[in-house]
């Protein structure tokens, strides 16, 4: 294998977390290379079409999906520069203080090794960096005060406004949603035009995807992106005490070695453990950073309770954003629902398109033929939806592990097993029942819930943070307990999942980790 000249930092993955590390470290003058499996997407590649939008998602990952509630990997994942944050909805709720102390306060799962106060300044920094629209003051009925958001709330539409009365009827206060989108021009990026194509990628840069935020800054500061380059292993020195770089395969399938002083794994929650497990050596027989045997364990997702309603009016449901117009932490308390544990985060008001998984046609999956056509015509202007995201507690049985079959690069595929526990079923049902009540309270003509298999949304865990190698893989900065110059970034390091959309927290934790690495470079990089 050809060996490339040593760089300061090799970052595996050019999505939300990798781009933050790249921006911070490149700005410090470090030589940074980001490796990305997929193409180097540009804004001009982001066609407004649910059909074409599938190009920025993985064409089946290297994972065999098992368990009673298999992870929705393909729909959630990203493929190419920008990662999943190229098609995320940019809802920016934050975790709340109770998320960090689940063990201490409730005797369940884990505590994070940090508190809300440690992350809060980074939420505020990220808001300024990428641009967040919302009403921080309004949110402070549920969370400690912080800085105001740099932009006022987004415009709302009837498809969101129509829910307010219904939520009031069940005692739920809604506030303007915090979103990583521009309600007004911000840092040279234009304001949103509300045509609802966020989920296939925003080509005008109104939505804070990595291409127009941290990755753009990283490139300006000299970071190099190597697209179509698949990292298969992290390499270590003879003593096994430090990492020395990565092995990867380039666009022509040639194996290469990139030496680096520091390696940051930012390839999403499932791929990071796959790489760590595949990097086993004589000194690290169970994989890197895995003396505890916890690499790949505690995979978590959120579950969504969806409620649909048709109103007898034109809701302009094609207008708005794919993210939310309104949000609520009213049911975020861990014991909000009787006989079950876990937070709920509620959002309302989304632009709807006709097709794909979240499209109008899938609001009634049971319908086909003339009945589906009649529904489509009825729903075309009057359909709207709300979603309640729920918290799954970490379960050691939900895990990623290597199997015998291999991919095109000779790297073992992995099995990802995921099954929800009883608490999830109870909270999911309770949220559905409350959603139906809210819809009826809002005066909807037709109301139904999205029953069937409990969905899996947002992938987290697998390399969780903690106080030491006995209970976790990394510390609160994402630095592995065993190898001082190996970091893990992204949702994989969450100790618990909360119920808030994860990307704002991913940005915040990555910024915290990257700044810590930069501040301690001489000690950590060696």
């Amino acid at each position: 294998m050809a060996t490339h000249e040593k760089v300061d930092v090799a970052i595996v993955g050019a999505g939300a977390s990798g781009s933050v590390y790249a921006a911070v470290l490149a700005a410090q003058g470090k030589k940074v290379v980001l490796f990305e499996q997929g193409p180097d997407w540009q804004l001009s590649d982001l066609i407004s079409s649910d059909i074409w939008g599938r190009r920025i998602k993985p064409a089946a990952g290297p994972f065999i999906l098992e368990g009673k509630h298999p992870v929705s990997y393909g729909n959630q994942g990203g493929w190419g520069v920008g990662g999943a944050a190229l098609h995320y909805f940019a809802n920016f709720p934050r975790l709340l203080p109770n998320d960090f102390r689940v063990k201490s306060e409730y005797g369940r799962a884990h505590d994070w090794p940090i508190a809300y106060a440690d992350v809060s300044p980074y939420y505020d920094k990220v808001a300024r960096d990428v641009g967040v629209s919302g009403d921080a003051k309004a949110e402070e009925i549920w969370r400690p005060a912080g800085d105001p958001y740099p932009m006022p709330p987004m415009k709302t539409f009837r498809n969101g406004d129509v829910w307010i009365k219904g939520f009031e009827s069940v005692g739920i206060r809604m506030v303007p949603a915090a979103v990583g989108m521009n309600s007004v021009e911000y840092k040279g990026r234009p304001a949103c035009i509300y045509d609802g194509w966020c989920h296939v990628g925003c080509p005008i840069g109104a939505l804070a995807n990595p291409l127009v935020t941290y990755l753009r800054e990283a490139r300006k500061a000299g970071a190099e992106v190597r697209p179509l380059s698949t990292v298969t292993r992290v390499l270590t020195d003879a003593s096994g005490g430090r990492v020395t770089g990565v092995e990867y395969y380039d666009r022509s399938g040639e194996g290469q070695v990139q030496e680096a002083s520091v390696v940051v794994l930012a390839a999403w929650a499932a791929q990071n453990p796959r790489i760590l497990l595949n990097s086993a050596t004589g000194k690290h027989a169970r994989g890197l950073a895995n003396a505890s045997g916890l690499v790949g364990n505690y995979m978590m997702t959120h579950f969504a309770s969806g409620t649909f309603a048709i109103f007898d009016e034109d809701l302009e449901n094609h207008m708005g954003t794919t993210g939310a117009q309104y949000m609520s932490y009213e049911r975020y308390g861990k014991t909000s629902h009787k006989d079950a544990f876990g937070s709920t985060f509620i959002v309302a008001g989304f632009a709807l398109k006709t097709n794909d998984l979240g499209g109008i046609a899938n609001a009634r999956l049971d319908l086909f033929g003339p009945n589906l056509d009649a529904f489509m015509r009825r729903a075309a202007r009057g359909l709207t939806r709300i979603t309640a995201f729920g918290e799954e507690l970490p379960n050691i049985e939900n895990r990623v592990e290597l199997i015998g079959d291999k991919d095109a690069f000779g790297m073992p595929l992995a099995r990802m097993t995921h099954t929800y526990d009883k608490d999830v079923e109870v909270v999911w049902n309770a949220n559905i029942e409350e959603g139906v009540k809210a819809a009826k309270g809002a005066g909807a003509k037709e109301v139904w819930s999205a029953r069937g298999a409990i969905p899996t949304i947002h992938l987290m865990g697998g390399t969780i943070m903690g106080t030491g190698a006995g209970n976790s893989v990394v510390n609160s900065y994402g630095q592995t307990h065993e190898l001082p110059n190996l970091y893990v970034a992204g949702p994989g390091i969450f100790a618990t999942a909360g119920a808030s959309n994860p990307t704002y927290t991913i940005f915040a934790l990555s910024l915290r980790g990257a700044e810590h690495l930069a501040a301690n470079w001489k000690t950590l990089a060696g």
Partner: protein
Amino acid sequence: MDQLGRRRFMQGAALGALAFTVGGAQILLTPREARAQGVALRTLRQPEAETLAALGETLVPGAREAGIVHFVDQQVSVPPEEALLEARILNVRPPFVNFYRAALAAVDGASQAQNAGKRFADLDAGAQHAFVDRMRQNKIDGWQGPPGSFVYLVTRSDAVDVVYGTVDGYAKLGIPYMAHIAPTARW
């Protein structure tokens, strides 16, 4: 994307068209146009195409004429990372044609077993509707292939794509398409 890949991609997307082979040359057509022009299928066999057309039409009226067969055939003929099928995000393992072959064989096998040897495409519309209703609920005895409910989900998505997911489909429903970057041809 590299420049060549981007040029091809943008050309196709801007036209809302896919690359079909006609007379040995690649030309850009919508699936509806490809069907109307009788473009030869690249991967699906004729009986599979007939079953898919009938299934698509049962799932979403208009899917046959909108070119569901040419859409799926073209998509299973390109490298999986270029495919636009919903199968891609439903975790179907490539090559995607394997799934479609197994699914369509399961449909015809069950149809023949239950209808005195008649393939699905040969059933009358009422019988096709009743069959699909049982298939979506995994209630067909002796079914052999991917779960019926999953076959329903994937093929229904394909039919929805070609009928409702196009610029024309939006227009028929009275929904403004409002593209940032438009597929300017009408699919």
